[in-house]
Structure formats: structure tokens, C-alpha cells
């Protein structure tokens, strides 16, 4: 079901209403697992690598999103490390940083693009 894509074009992933507000889903994009989150309060979407580098499992889309000061993050469901959803940086350790993806809502669809 994967749509064709390259680095410069946006790829349709799924209808917006497949996402549950304030929760995540995992998408298959260019043979990569991408965790996508919809934050209801700010009506923004975020996309980061689904692989948890601490627990070494593909689970981040199943974490809880939260905020501290003005940073929005996801907390891993395994060992609770927090990752900045905009930059991919880990708030609890400098050693790990997640890959991030460009993501947008277009015509009520979620679209992804490799970050430049």
C-alpha cells in the first residue's frame, strides 16, 4: 500500500481521521518506520523515527505525548525517556537523537517528506 515517493515530493500516508487526537500511529515510509503524532491543543502534527534507541524496539508511536516548558515531546512506552518531537533530541540523554521527518496535513490527509 506504500505510495511512491522521493526526497523532494510529499507522500500521502493516511486520512487525518485515522489519527487519534493526542496519540500516535506508526507509518511505513521509504522502508522506514515513522511515528506520527497529532496534538489537538495546537492542532499540529509531528513525525520522528519509531525506533526507541534505549529499548531497541519499534515502539515510540505508542508513547504518551507531553510538554515541559514550551517543548513538546513523546515519552517512550518502554523506559520513559523523552524525545523532543520537533528536533528529535532526547531530553534525558545527550547520546541519542531521533531522525525527524517533515509532516503536514493536506486536504485532510497526513503527508510525509524526508527532512532536507
Amino acid at each position, binding site marked *: *500500500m506504500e505510495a511512491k515517493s522521493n526526497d523532494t515530493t510529499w507522500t500521502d500516508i493516511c486520512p487525518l481521521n*485515522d489519527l487519534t487526537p493526542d496519540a500516535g500511529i506508526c507509518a511505513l515510509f521509504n522502508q522506514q518506520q515513522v511515528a506520527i503524532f497529532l*496534538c*489537538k*491543543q495546537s492542532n499540529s502534527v509531528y513525525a520522528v523515527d519509531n525506533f526507541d534507541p534505549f529499548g531497541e524496539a*519499534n515502539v515510540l508511536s505508542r508513547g504518551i505525548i507531553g510538554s515541559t516548558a514550551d517543548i513538546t515531546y513523546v*515519552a517512550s512506552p518502554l523506559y520513559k525517556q523523552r524525545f523532543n518531537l520537533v528536533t528529535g533530541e532526547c531530553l534525558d540523554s545527550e547520546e541519542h537523537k531521533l531522525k525527524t521527518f517533515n509532516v503536514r496535513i493536506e486536504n485532510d490527509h497526513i503527508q510525509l517528506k524526508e527532512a532536507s
Partner: protein
Amino acid sequence: MSKQRIVVVGNGMVGHKFIDTIIGTDESKYEVITFSEESRLAYDRVQLSYFFSGKTAEDLALTDAAYYEENGIKFVLNDKVVDLDFDNRNVITASGRVESYDKLVLATGSYPFVPPIPGNDQEHCHVYRTIDDLEAITQSGETSKTGVVIGGGLLGLEAGNALVNLGVETHIVEFAPRLMAVQLDDGGGALLKRKIEGLGVHVHTEKATTEIVAGTTSRYRMNFADGSHLETDMIIFSAGIRPQDELARKTGIPIGERGGIVINNHCETGVEDVYAIGECALWENFIFGLVAPGYQMAKVAAAHMHGDSDSEFTGADMSTKLKLLGIDVASIGEVHGKTPGAQSYTYHDEIEQVYKRLIVSADGTKMVGAVLVGDVEAYGTLLQLKLNDMKLPANPSVLILPSSGGEEAAGMGVDALPDTAAICSCFDVSKGDIKNAVVAGCCSMGELKASTKATTGCGGCSALAKQVLDNELSNLGFEVKKDICEHFAYSRQELADIIRVKKIKTFSALLAECGSGIGCEICKPAVASILASYWNAYVLEDEHIGLQDTNDNYLGNMQKDGTYSVVPRIPGGEITPDGLIVIGQVAKEFDLYTKITGGARVDLFGAQLHELPAIWKKLVDAGFETGHAYGKSLRTVKSCVGSTWCRYGLKNSIGFAIDLENRYKGLRSPHKVKFGVSGCTRECAEAQGKDFGLIATDSGWNLYVGGNGGMRPRHGDLFASDLSDEQLRTYVDRIYMFYIRTADRLQRTSVWLENMEGGIEYLREVVINDSLNIATELEAEMETNIENYQCEWKTTIEDPEKLKRFKHYINSTEADTGLAFKVEREQRFPASKKEILIKELS
């Protein structure tokens, strides 16, 4: 300077304590060698009875060879010291070994007194002193139906408990007119007797055994002076101890008229450089048969050898508090009316079986002694009053009367205690020590335990220590901040109140009402749990999904590789063969690792997200419900079969366990909750280790609250006795909802109860006497929850919209390619990164 050579004769608890103290001082100064006639190094004789509840000799050990070797202590086992040569300063052993000493310490302990009754030396006649004795008793127990303990003192009752544990019909025969004649008065002894008889143990007082002969129906027959008799298969003598002073007698060390090695305040005997400590020592014509005074002597002797002549033994407090056959008993000070003019206050509740007597001085201002049976909560306060010789409150009866309306029970705040007051006697922590710890930064019981070790011994002082801690904190002007996280300036309890009173149904409404930001992984699950507790809505409503931990979100426990466990509910652990077959078939079809758990059910591991609906469809179709293993909610109700099958069961524990599990299943709470239901006092369901523990008695249920296994095991506190089924449900409803209302996030009932001001007594006030006038509300809330119960998995598999979330990719049907498994013992396990690599390379 050459090392001083110390020889310690006897390696019991006190001998070991002495060595341990020496190790702690300046080991380079001493060379220590110790002898024991037993085959083991020192072990905990006080806990000896636990041998029957499964503890091994190793569990009871106080030390081991490695520790002694590390610290340069030489030890010789199985070789008794039989002679002393004071002129040449040598000890001589049974095997002929000769060792010289500079200082000699006799810690030979005591031996059990066996009354000179004809026939007392037969095969199944035992004493109760060493591990070897206990092993022999166990062996006799295997071929015995009936057993008798001669002696109804403290140790005798412990021996009685041992017989009960061995499953033999137990009799206790006492010469005196009451049990525990030394520690208790007539009233206390009589109630103790009644309570023990209530447990099915036969008590015979005022019986003098004249002979033990061959029996007709049993192995032996005991004839008594009054002409009556008793048949039994085995006998344990527990009629007191005698100081082991054989060696001293033989070598001419001065001993007392009725035995015991005479010592002075430095624990020195009448022979130069020879000390005696523990139960073999006679101080001011008194033998101390408890371990604490022995330990004091050990410390004094060690200090004196080290050159500290200020350190003296000046007697010891013989107050005791203990649980005998599950019955609380305590005795403080002098209770036999030997103090001229003493008067007393007595509280005797025949219904609840509680006896308390407080003996005060002639002028009524100071305490002389106290006896407590059935309720020993006042022990801490009373002991402090006595030890510190404090002035009694104006109306001393409040000290033993049941408290009412949540006011401070004793009427004597901890603030009144002097700094020298001993709070934790196990680790010798005074009120002043706690005060200093608080000044140094201790703010919680956890920190206090870490820095002072207080309450980590027997734990009997935890309530008192907590009171002192809180008192010191508030004296310093602390106000403990309990905000749950940065998004809400409220504790979990306050949030629960806001949600309940304002009838808030969603997280976003709560955030709008009193929060900031978007929430986080701390407050979201906590609020989700409160919402579920009060309104018991389906946890997978869109509004709630983002709040839950993944476990609640996908109705399974996430494992280390991102797969989930599947745990169907098996109420009470009862399952039909057909049910088992279905579980087996499902596990086989989906290749799930299968394990029987400690909670009496079957866990299936390794289910992938997309497989969960199909797995649960099969289980639900076969009649299973979700087991909520993923939720902070009721887990399991562990049970024995009770009166349905068991020869000893008093009530139908399995039936009641199933009822309870069905009543409370699905209810979300601050943390997980477990129940245990035992059909009799043998307690096979380990109910006292559960949040709610029920033990059947011959007239109802005893309810225990706040038990816990896990990281810090704790036995539950007895909340109420002999309850009917109906009473029990009502009380549990109220306690459970009160816990949900007032506990902190992720706080188990054990910690909740420990931190509750006023403790179990306060909880009783709230639940039994409805002191807060909320009982009806609590029951109504529980009723609503029970009515709204649904099996979350059944609801989920019936809703195609909800099932959309149960796949790994939103835009593909592929499974997670990152998963890898290996097979061990014919089952599937997650493979590690290294194992995957090895497999790929091969």
C-alpha cells in the same frame, strides 16, 4: 606490640555479637578465636520458629565462614571447650586442642530445662532450642497425630505454633494457673488462653505432669497430679531455661546460688580477664533470657576490653511485644502488684477480645507496668512513658481506651518525648537521631530508613518513627509539596476531589479547569485512572486514548521487544479443563510463550499488536474476560480450595474469592490491587501478603489490609475480626473507594496505610464508625463501578473503528520487521541484538 588474643567460648547470638563488635573497633589490635559445640556458626534463635514456615538454616544464619575469614576470625565448630587453665591462660577442648588467651569470653548461653518427670527421655520427647532440635521435631511430627508442649510461657507458645504448623493436634500443658505467667496478669492470661483455644489449640493450666508412660490410643500417656491424663504422640519440653555454667562450675569461676556465672557491671567474672555475657551470666542475681540485654552485655564487654571502663551494664528493660500464634501480646514493666500502693486501669472488651491493663504509681503520676492482649497499638507510647519515666497525662485511662473520632489516640504527642527516647530498638535510633537526620535533609520515611536504618529491623516502630519524622518536619516549618507535575499544582488526592466534586469527565476539561500545558506521561495516566475509577467509562474512548500508558491503550502489557502479553481472567484460579484447552489452543496457534504465574493464572507472551484482536476474539468467544494484567486495577484473588475440599477448611474460600474477583474486576485505582482468601489459619493463600487479605475463622472472616509482596514485603494489618460475608463486602467497598479517593499516584495500599495519619485506627474510624460521614457515598460509588463493568476486550473486538489501531502500520498490513525470536525449552523468546547478529552471520 603483639596482638591481644581473645577466645570466645560459644558462638550463639551473643557470642557473635561480641565478635562483630570487636571487628567494628580495631581488628588489627586483636586476634579472635571462637569455639562452638554446634555444627553451625551463629544463627538467629529468636526467629527459630520461622524454620517451620519454610526458612532454612541459611536464612537464619547471622554470619558465615567467609565473613569470619575476611575479618581474620578463627572458628572451631563441633568442638566443645571442656576445661580452663587459668595459670597458663589456656582453654582445652573435647578433642584435646589447647589454645592460649589474653582475654576469655564465656558466651555459653543456656539449655532448656527438662522437668525430672519419669519417662521424659523417650524417642519423641524433644526440647526447643537449636536447629537440630527443630529438625527432630519435624521428623516426629511426620508420624504423629497429637502433640503436647509442656510449658505455657513465651517459648512454649512458640513451640505450640510449631506443632500447629506441622498439622498435628496441639495441646499446651502449663503448671501455673495462667499462660505466660511471667509477663501477663490473670486477666491477660485468661484472654490469651481463650484466643488460643479459638484457634483450635487445647490449653490445660494447673497441670503437673507426674509421669510419661506408654499410651493406649497414642504413643504416650501423660499422667497428671490431679488424676487426669492426656494421650499424645510427641512431647516438647519448654519449661524455661537454665544458664549453661557447666564449664564455670568445673573450673571454679564463682556462680550464683541457683546457677549463672556472676558478673559485675563490666561483665567481668570473679576470675581475672575472664568475662561472661548473655544467658549464662548472672547480673545482680538475675538471668536475662532475652537477646537485647545479651547484646548490651556483648557491647559492654568489648568496650571494656578496648579500655573504656565507663561503659557499664546496668540492667535491661524486659518489656516485650510479640505475636504468638497470630495473637498480639505485650508486657511492659512490673505487672504483678509488687509495687506498693500501685493502682490500675483495666479495659476489657470481650466482644473484640481485647484486654489492656495499665498499672500506675500510688499517686497516679507515673507508670509502673502494662499488659496488652489482642491490641498492642498502645505499646510504643506506653513503653516510652515507662522507659523515660515520664509524667502521665491527667486522665491516664485515655492511654488504653479505644480512640474515638480520629483524635490522637494516646493524648500524648511525640513532641513530649525526650531526645534520648529510643524509637527503633533494633538499630538503636533515638528521637534525637531522627531529629538530626531531618536537620541534615531527610524528608521522607524512605530517606530516614536509608540514613538511620530506623524501622528496618522488626518494623514495629514504623508508625512511631513516622510520627516523629512528621513532627520534626513541621517543627522546622516544612510544608511538603505534593504537586503531581508541572501541569497541575495539585496532589493526586486533590485532583481526585476536583474531578469527583465538579463531575469532570475528560482530561481536557480538567486541564481547562485547573491545569496548564498539554499534560505529560505523569499526569495523564494518573488522571485517566481517576476518571476510570469514578466514572468507569470505556478506557478506549477517543478522549481517553492519549492519556493511557501503552499497556492500557492496547489492553496488554508491553514487553521489552514491543510485543504484548495476553492474560485472561481466571477468577480465584479456578478453571475448567475445557477452559485450559482453549488457552492451550490459542497459545499454540499464535506461538505464544506460555507460563503459569504466581497469581494463579496463565500468561501468554509475544503477541504482536495486529494479532491481539484475533487472539482475544477466540478467548472471548470461549467465555474468557480480560484479566486487566495491564491496568492499575484489581489483579488476582488468590485462594485455597477451603472447606469444599480441604480437611481443615473452615469456610468456602474459593467460592468467596470468585465472588470478590467478579465484584471488583476492572476497577481502576492508584496502583494494582491483589486479594488473598484463605480458608483457615494455615493461610495457604498467603492472604496477609495482599492488599486485602481474608482468613476464615470459625465465626467469620478476619480482614487484613495493606499487605504487600514485591520490593518491600509487608504483612497486612488486622483490620477487623470475625466478619460476616456481608460485613466484609461493605468494609472492603468502603476501604477500596477510600483508597482510590485519597492515595497518591502509584501508591500501593501498604504505603498508603503507613502514611495515613492515625494509621489503621483512623481507617477503622472512617470505615466502621463512618467518622467522616462518607460511607454511603463510598458504597454508592462502588455500586456505580460494579454496574458499569465491561470486559474491555469484548467491547473492543465488537467495534471495527477501535480495531483500526491494532496494527503495526497505519498504511500497511505488514508486521513489524524489527522483531526477532529464538527458541528455548521448546518455546519462543525475544532474541537479543547479539543473537540476531550471530544468526545472520551463520
